[in-house]
């Protein structure tokens, strides 16, 4: 299979900050690839290098078989880039923004209308409205339309759903699913762990490095400890009591439960439940569960932090 994106040992430094420390990965054509990580992990720097807006200090990258430094002009005509910060013209209308981007790429909105129709239909009632006056979700849809207007083969979407409500986020991901069916390769970054499971493959970034890269189910198989979901009435109190348990490794709130791991290899749910009952939780429920992506990422974050602290101290 042809690789749409290949990077080898990309690194980038801004003064004392090492934004990227040797990023190597590839994305085959027509794949929906997720970059997951917190602010400061290096996602945006990576996107800017791929979008040919930054030159790496070391390493190299190619998109659609073209080198990002040597062939940046051709790359720019063949990819779509949606930056993290809203970068359309606030004082142009929805329609004017689209036409402007189409003109810049030497095409027309009509020529590629088929590709953006579904998204544009939702924007249609507001086509005369200035972009600056749109709600967060609508702005994201317009930005996606503008990034698609020249029918790119590859889309780079930098945190398209940050600050967007749960309904708009769901709609946005449904659109990405349909674009994938049209054969468009997509790189999407997000701080939302639940969105990771919607990707074909994900890379988990932290401190300028890729900590893990796999399919969503491959990622969760990295979590090897027994995991328990604990439920009782007073969650705050429950978390504190679980952390105070002498065999406790971690206890974190997860929705309506607390996810607990033990320092021992084969802890028993019954023992934990009995202990919590002795601490006054009459309604306690302890269930062994399969880990999710968020559990796995949290475990990876914690283990890398404790290693770092050990090497610092």
């Amino acid at each position, binding site marked *: 299979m042809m690789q749409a994106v290949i990077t080898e040992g990309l690194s980038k430094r801004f003064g004392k900050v090492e934004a990227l420390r040797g990023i190597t990965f590839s994305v085959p054509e027509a794949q929906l690839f997720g970059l997951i*990580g*917190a*602010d*400061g*992990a290096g996602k945006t720097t990576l996107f800017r290098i791929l979008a040919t807006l930054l030159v790496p200090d070391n390493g190299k990258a190619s998109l659609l078989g073209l080198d990002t430094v040597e062939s940046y002009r051709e790359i720019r005509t063949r990819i779509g880039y949606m930056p993290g910060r809203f970068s359309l013209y606030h004082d142009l209308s929805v329609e004017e923004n689209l036409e402007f981007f189409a003109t810049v790429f030497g095409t027309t909105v009509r020529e590629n209308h088929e590709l953006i129709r579904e998204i544009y239909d*939702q924007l249609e*009632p*507001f086509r005369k*409205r200035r972009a600056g*006056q*749109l*709600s*967060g*979700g*609508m702005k994201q849809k317009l930005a996606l339309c503008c990034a698609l207007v020249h029918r790119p083969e590859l889309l780079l979407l930098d945190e398209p759903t*940050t*600050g*967007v*409500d*749960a*309904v*708009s*986020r*769901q*709609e946005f991901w449904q659109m990405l699913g349909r674009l994938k069916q049209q054969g468009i390769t997509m790189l999407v970054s997000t*701080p*939302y*762990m*639940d969105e990771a499971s919607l990707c074909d493959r994900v890379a988990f970034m*932290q401190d300028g490095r890729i900590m893990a890269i796999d399919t969503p189910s491959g990622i969760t198989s990295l979590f090897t400890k027994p995991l328990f979901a604990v439920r009782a009435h007073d*969650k*705050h109190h429950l*978390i504190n009591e679980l952390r105070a348990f002498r065999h406790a490794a971690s206890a*974190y*709130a*997860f*929705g*309506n439960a607390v996810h607990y791991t033990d320092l021992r290899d084969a802890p028993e749910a019954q023992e934990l439940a009995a202990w919590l009952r002795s601490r006054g939780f009459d309604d306690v429920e302890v269930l062994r569960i399969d880990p999710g992506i*968020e559990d796995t*990422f*949290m475990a990876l*974050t*914690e283990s890398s*932090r404790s290693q770092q602290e050990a090497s610092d101290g």
Partner: protein
Amino acid sequence: MAEQVIHTEKLTKRFGRFTAVDEISFSVSAGEIFGFLGANGAGKTTAMKMLTGLLAPTSGSATVACFDIYRQTEAIRRNIGYMSQRFSLYDDLTVRENIRFFGGIYGLDKATIRDKCDQMLHSLDLLREGDTRLSALPLGWKQKLAFSVALLHEPKVVFLDEPTGGVDPVTRRRFWDLIYQTAANGVTVFVTTHYMDEAEYCDRVSIMVDGKIAALDTPEKLKRTFGTATMNELFIRLARPAKGSGQ
């Protein structure tokens, strides 16, 4: 009945013909963690601006920390804490300078500020970073510091507008540990978020749809009433029909 720290009755705000907040009535008790949810454009920000004394309502009534939101906005601002993604601390001041600056704004005397500063650096484990500029700190530390600074003047209620955006899941949960501690000390926490798992961590949650409160209860009862397994499902169910207003 616990003391009502926030109380609104038919609180309304219109901009021209558009009704951004439409007769919302609710109460929040002392020490309660109250989740204020809604889709983008549902009216959350407008409601928050009224409750924090930054915007005069069109009609209805409300009190915050026992002060009237029409006549006592100055007193409200002195008796509440506020933190958001957009407005927090000064990046080009050091940690200590930020604490001193906000302490001064809140009218605390020098000795109190010095004590609070030491306490805060200690409890946040920032003793080594006291003279570091904020711009050099990780986002998660900044968020914790901004939250503590919002509590400097010991307000009865603190408003948190999407406080945990952009951080990793471990850091996000550590922030919630702080929220729980604060509420356990009797401070009311009024919080907005787009993370639906965080809605589950609140004592009660309200969901705004098109300017009205469409649902308000404990997360457990809301899920039972609407027959959904998660708050995310519930939110999507309630907020989806309203989409398309675009405003």
